[in-house]
């Protein structure tokens, strides 16, 4: 514990170095050492790890997750409870202005993930000017906030930012899968930021600050709130249930499984795009569930559709959630059977999705479902073969519809206080 705490303190000091208003720390009272004490008092593990580690264990809810590292936080990191995900269109045509924005965003992200407000803070500045920070996260803990950036295909378009030669082959445009009913207003984007935190206000605050800093350079294209995690990257934890009441994605890649991460999640220089080494590829899908129809479905059919029992989450014929499934015991169109690596030539993805509910749809039906987020080393070897299989045959298709879709190249981590999001791409 002691080592972890001291690392936390260092991380905080590092994060503060670029800040312009040191007095803010005193005002807020939970920067630096104050935070470490708080974490120790909470008695939980601290979500900080030695430098260079790509593995982050479960942590107490209030702690900070280090922003700097070989990989971006928010992928292998223990999954937080809440999500605010935003996709942006880039409005500026000026490459230098885009680079400046990415640097400004990095600085803001560095501060916010450490639990600090952006710029000169939320109050106490010039009375004639609006405060730099909007203030709703003042006094809240860092809440394991992670901010993860991704670059969409549009950024690499010809005659835009001179990046057409940098587009990774693994960043493919997704095909139209059978049953897709994609809303363009909820799809695509030149940039994305995934904000995950244990406190929803902390996640929303983070996206709000970045959107504000971005005005004129970027415009929010769409955003999605997720209220409950549906996956776990920590195998000792229970797999959370989705909105259908089932545990799904039990065999997720664990944040501690370095071999699996290197094989299935982290891109390598040898994959073809050197700038992506240590990065990953993200597929985001807004999957609406026909909640009311599902709720009227018999328990037997529900269990047949997934290939698990509803109570324990054990695969058909097994007794425990994590027992190795015997696929042939399941119906041929069972979700678990079709999604399993053995049915997809070993394809594995790291799932980090969230349940969402955006109220009701005007017809009195819950507008709810799964905001599916999957990280992989190559979209062509991860999501695409699995989704081809599922979209054709999955029994679940009767109860779900994919209504939004986006794909992003997620660059490697920000190494230190002088580094910035996208440096390897633009440098």
């Amino acid at each position, binding site marked *: 514990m002691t080592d972890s705490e001291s690392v936390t303190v260092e991380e905080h000091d590092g994060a503060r170095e670029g800040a312009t208003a040191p007095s803010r720390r005193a005002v807020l009272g939970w920067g630096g050492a104050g935070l470490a004490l708080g974490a120790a008092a909470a008695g939980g593990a601290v979500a900080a790890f030695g430098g260079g580690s790509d593995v982050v264990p479960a942590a107490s809810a209030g702690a900070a997750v280090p922003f700097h590292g070989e990989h971006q936080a928010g992928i292998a990191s223990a999954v937080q409870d809440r999500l605010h995900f935003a996709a942006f*269109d880039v409005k500026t045509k000026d490459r230098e202005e885009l680079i400046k924005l990415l640097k400004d965003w990095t600085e803001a992200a560095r501060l916010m993930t450490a639990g600090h407000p952006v710029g000169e803070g939320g109050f106490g500045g010039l009375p004639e000017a609006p405060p730099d920070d909007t203030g709703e996260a003042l006094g809240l803990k860092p809440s394991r906030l992670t901010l993860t950036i991704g670059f969409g295909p549009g950024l690499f378009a010809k005659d835009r930012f001179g990046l057409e030669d940098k587009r990774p082959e693994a960043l493919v445009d997704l095909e139209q899968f059978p049953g897709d009913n994609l809303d363009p207003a909820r799809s695509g984007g030149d940039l994305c930021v995934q904000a995950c935190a244990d406190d929803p206000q902390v996640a929303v605050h983070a996206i709000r600050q970045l959107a504000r800093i971005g005005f004129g350079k970027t415009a929010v294209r769409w955003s999605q709130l997720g209220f409950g995690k549906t996956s776990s990257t920590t195998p000792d934890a229970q797999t959370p249930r989705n909105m259908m009441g089932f545990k799904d994605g039990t065999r997720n890649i664990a944040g501690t499984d370095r071999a699996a991460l290197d094989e299935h999640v982290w891109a390598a220089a040898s994959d073809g795009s050197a700038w992506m080494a240590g990065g990953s590829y993200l597929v985001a899908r807004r999957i609406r569930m026909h909640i009311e129809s599902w709720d009227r479905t018999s328990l037997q059919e529900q269990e047949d559709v997934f290939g698990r029992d509803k109570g324990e989450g054990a695969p058909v014929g097994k007794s425990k959630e994590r027992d190795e499934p015997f696929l042939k015991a399941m119906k041929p169109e069972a979700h678990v059977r079709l999604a399993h690596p053995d049915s997809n030539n070993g394809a594995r993805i790291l799932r980090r999705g969230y349940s969402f509910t955006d109220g009701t749809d005007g017809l009195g039906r819950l507008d709810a479902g799964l905001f599916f987020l999957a990280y992989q080393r190559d979209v062509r070897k991860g999501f695409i073969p699995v989704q081809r299989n599922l979209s054709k045959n999955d029994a679940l298709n009767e109860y779900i519809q994919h209504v939004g879709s986006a794909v992003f190249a997620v660059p490697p981590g920000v190494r230190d206080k002088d580094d910035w999001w996208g440096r390897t791409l633009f440098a």
Partner: protein
Amino acid sequence: MRPARFTVVTAAAAVAALTAVTGCAEKSAGGAEGTVQVAASDSACGVSKTEFPAGKVTIEVDNKGSKVTEVYVLFPDDRIVAERENIGPGTKATITAEIKAGDYVVNCKPGMKGDGIRQKVKATGGASAKRSPELDAAVAEYRKYVLAQADESLPAVKTFTDAVRAGDVEAAKQAFAPSRRGWERTEPVAESFGDIDPKTDVREDGLEPGQNWTGWHRLEKALWADNKIGDEEKALASQLDTDIAEWHKRVGTAEITPTSMANGAKELLDEVARNKVTGEEDRYSHTDLADFKANVEGADKVYELLKPVAAKNDPQLGKTLDTQFAALDTLLDKHRADKNGYDFTSYDKVGDAERKELSDAVNALAEPLSKLAAAVAK
């Protein structure tokens, strides 16, 4: 310090700051020292002294000219301290005012129009607030703009209300949007007269319990939704004339400061974001883009006047605002055939994707514009 807002010299404010009493009061007890004689003619505005002690000051006007005149005491930024209108040829009038230490202008307007003739004076004693000549000039210029917008609005509104009174639905529809232009360009100033906006520019959902719905939007609904003009609408048209005349009369008394100007520009963009981009403002006529344009023009005017100071204090902000004003103008031009005209696409024909594009451009301008006040206050 509270955020700077436009305020009006009301009775309450006058107690704290200054008292302007027009009309023939008893002779000032302060005697000759606190009395200034103004010899007003068709070509001159002579003052008996250019310096006098701060405090209660009596201004004795003698109109020696051949035209009806008016006399103002103004702050250096042209805000009115005290005024007297309708001083006939060969007549005298007395103005008394509580005047704090500082620089002022005595302004005679023979014929009651134009810039008139100006005479600088100084109230001495006490501490006078430090002023920036550059910003005073900007405020004075802006005040001129606001007055000009009110001037132009009178006939434009009358064209509209005449058509309503004549029962000519088509002509009234044509005249509706143009009648709003001057108001929309200077809306934050117009709204600072708290009692006028609710009479002229309120929308149905903005009514308070018991409030009669009057003004532009009530007539808009009659013209576009109900498609008829009755006696009630004709009476409302005349009421609008009266209310607009009241605005015109009072607009010169609005307290304008460099920061209130800058925040007013930002508020104009707020107006656009809240009411125009959403199509709420002109929900029956769908002439939202004409109001949109006028709001942006009003904000642009403020920026143009404050730019010399703002760009000096914050050069990057100047560049950004230049870029974003130009970008928004270009985008708006896509929605009108004639770049010099005000015939914009009916907003119900502007699709979701185009509205998103407009909204993005408004955000892109409004965010840096919110930093203009700080740039002039530095």
